[in-house]
């Protein structure tokens, strides 16, 4: 975008003129205006949060403190290795367990002896939480753990586990977000000049035409809904004005292609699982064809109704159980879906799916259900039925398991890369 010189000059002149006008001293009026501003605030409702009495409702992603779900930890040391500050201390020993079945091989597992985080060193970057492949670390909103002595800021696993009770589930994502495993939306249509064929966004008919299976929930948060109408009023490019399907292949697909409210993966059943998402390269290179994504005006009755009806995230129906001669990509997709349904966080689900795909590629047979539902909690995406995180601090009481702690898979299960 080359800047037109004259345009810049004009802009600058206008700015300079405005500035010169503002610089003139108007003796007295400015002072009175200032007094009026402060006086007005004297009578305004105060928004101060009286902290120790009233606590702010912090978002669930808040990086307050790192909580440990002890039974998920396999002592893989990844967190300690990736930590930029070297503030995670892990001690463990190996334990040999008798074989599960008669005649099996004895299994080994790592037993966690010590897991401590030195919060005096921690820089709250969240890399450990991010890299943990077994969902053992979580962010909690707690922040009141100040100590009088810096040495007391090293918290051991008991304390870290206690914080597990305060972990919130991750929030639902904004409209238009793509969960791993979901197919990408087609490149949204570019607004073109002729308005004749334009399908108004939020058109009821258009909304109904959508393939039901592909329709992602469009629940608008109430606040989002109330923002929209004003936005429509403010913005020069009023939402419903410019929307139109561009490509012929989208003709039957209702084109509010990128209406942010519906942000759907329209049409186009997933041909290939491309979760690593090479974001429509065509779209990226061709900016003009890119979306001028237009929002559905929030007052469209159908939108809200539909949103309420499908109040939770529908993951695509699970595919059939894979046959031994499975296609790696298919395995990937299936595992991902299973994982998501089982309640893993998207990142973890993706990671596990990748592992499964690698195994499939290398011909390692997938164990029937290697994905345990053990972490239905806290990392699960919020769905309608989700209620409350299970306190991780007292796991034994919840599900008495014969053996606590992660069990190292046998060689057979482990696969070449395990």
């Amino acid at each position, binding site marked *: 975008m080359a800047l037109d010189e004259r345009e810049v000059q004009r802009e600058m002149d206008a700015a300079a003129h405005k500035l010169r006008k503002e610089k003139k001293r108007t003796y007295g009026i400015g*002072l009175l205006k*200032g*007094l009026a*501003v*402060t*006086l007005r*605030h*004297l009578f*305004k409702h*105060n*928004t*101060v949060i*009286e902290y120790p009495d009233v606590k702010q409702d912090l978002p669930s992603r808040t990086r307050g403190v790192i909580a440990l779900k002890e039974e998920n930890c396999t002592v893989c040391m990844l967190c300690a290795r990736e930590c930029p500050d070297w503030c995670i201390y892990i001690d463990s020993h190996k334990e040999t367990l008798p074989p599960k079945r008669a005649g099996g091989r004895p299994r080994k597992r790592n037993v966690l002896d010590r897991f401590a985080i030195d919060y005096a060193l921690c820089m709250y970057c969240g890399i450990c939480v991010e890299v943990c492949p077994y969902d053992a670390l979580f962010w909690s909103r707690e922040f009141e753990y100040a100590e009088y002595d810096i040495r007391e800021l090293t918290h051991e696993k008991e304390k870290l586990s206690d914080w597990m009770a305060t972990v919130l589930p991750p929030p639902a994502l904004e409209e238009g977000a793509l969960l791993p495993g979901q197919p990408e939306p087609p490149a949204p249509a570019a607004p073109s000049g002729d308005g004749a064929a334009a399908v108004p966004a939020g058109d009821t008919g258009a909304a109904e035409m959508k393939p039901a299976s592909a329709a992602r929930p469009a629940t608008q948060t109430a606040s989002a809904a109330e923002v929209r109408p004003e936005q429509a009023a403010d913005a020069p490019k009023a939402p419903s004005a410019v929307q139109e399907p561009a490509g012929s292949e989208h003709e039957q697909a209702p084109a509010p292609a990128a209406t942010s409210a519906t942000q759907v993966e329209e049409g186009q059943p997933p041909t290939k699982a491309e979760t690593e998402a090479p974001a429509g390269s065509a779209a990226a290179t061709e900016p003009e064809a890119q979306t001028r994504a237009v929002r559905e005006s929030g007052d469209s009755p159908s939108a809200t109704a539909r949103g309420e009806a499908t109040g939770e995230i529908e993951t695509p129906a699970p595919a059939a159980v894979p046959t031994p001669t499975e296609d790696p990509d298919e395995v990937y997709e299936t595992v991902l879906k299973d994982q998501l349904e089982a309640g893993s966080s998207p990142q973890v689900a993706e990671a596990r799916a990748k592992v499964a795909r690698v195994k499939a590629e290398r011909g390692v047979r997938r164990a029937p259900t290697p994905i345990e539902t053990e972490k239905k909690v806290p990392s699960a995406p919020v769905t309608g039925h989700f209620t409350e995180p299970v306190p991780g601090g007292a796991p034994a009481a919840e599900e008495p398991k014969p053996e606590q702690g992660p069990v190292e898979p046998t060689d057979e299960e482990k696969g070449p890369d395990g």
Partner: protein
Amino acid sequence: MPEFIQNFELTAWWILAIKLIVVLTVVPVGALAGGYALHKVMAHLQHRLGPMYAGGFHGWAQTLADGIKFVLKEDIIPEKADKPVFKYAPAIIFIPILLLYLVIPVDRRLIVQDLDVGLFYLLAVSSIPAIGILMAGWSSANKYALIGALRSAAQLIAYELPIVLSAATVAMLAGTLSVVGIVEAQDWPFLFWPPGIGLIAFIIFFAGSVAEMNLPPFDMPVAESEIITGAFTEYSGMRFIFGYFFAETAHMIAFSGLAVTFFLGGYRPIVPWEPLTVIPGIVWFMLKLFVMVFLYLWVRPTFPRLREDQLQKFAWKGLIPGSLGLILVAGAWILYAPEWLWH
């Protein structure tokens, strides 16, 4: 109550002693209340709540708690300081402010001493604190304190004149130097009569008093973003609170009282309506005092501060010629205004 004091069968010295004790208790309490008002009004102007804890209800005891804390704190005197001067400077700042209260008529009879030269007394006493600030700054052996002290001295010279001249205008119009006499001589609508003169004199007095008290926008001697707290940089504990914080609020209340007395009709009802005279003068005085204190508190957080040279310019090129001109106008009014305009 006023009659009781007047008719008390004791020597004048005893009466004076009792009155002094009353003033000495009233002033600190007033300063505490003023401090609380400062906290709260400023907080709400700034969209905050201010203190909410001490004492339970909206932090009413905050200034009390502050005072106790400061009194209990260690009194640190810098090694290189000129110690006697350093020690007594806060007293020299605070005591004259107490003395100001002696001649403020809270009611027609409720005054410690109605001096015949009350106005002179007031103006003489009110300029002493600046000397204390100069002492404090010089003796601290600190460059910031020195700059603050010199600024304060310059400010004293520049702003004493407008205050004196605007008060002189009032005295001319009233025809007396007695403070009670000035109140009695004022007529409704106090500030706006004679037209223009009273209002302009009030504005000059207000600006001058803000500078005299080192409040924003004329708080260069204690400008915290430039020279920390100027002359008080090295002070701590009780000396700090008496020299700086207490003095500031007590000063503010005293000057509010003076402004009420000189310009707003003192203890007299705001409208000359017969039923209103039932309300005692002290209530009227307090009401007006609150308005004045609020005015000071309102200006305080709203404006940025001027620069030292601009302050001098404002005083010497604006306020002083203005107040001199005002004296001329007032004299002309006294000489030539027809009789029916006077009342």
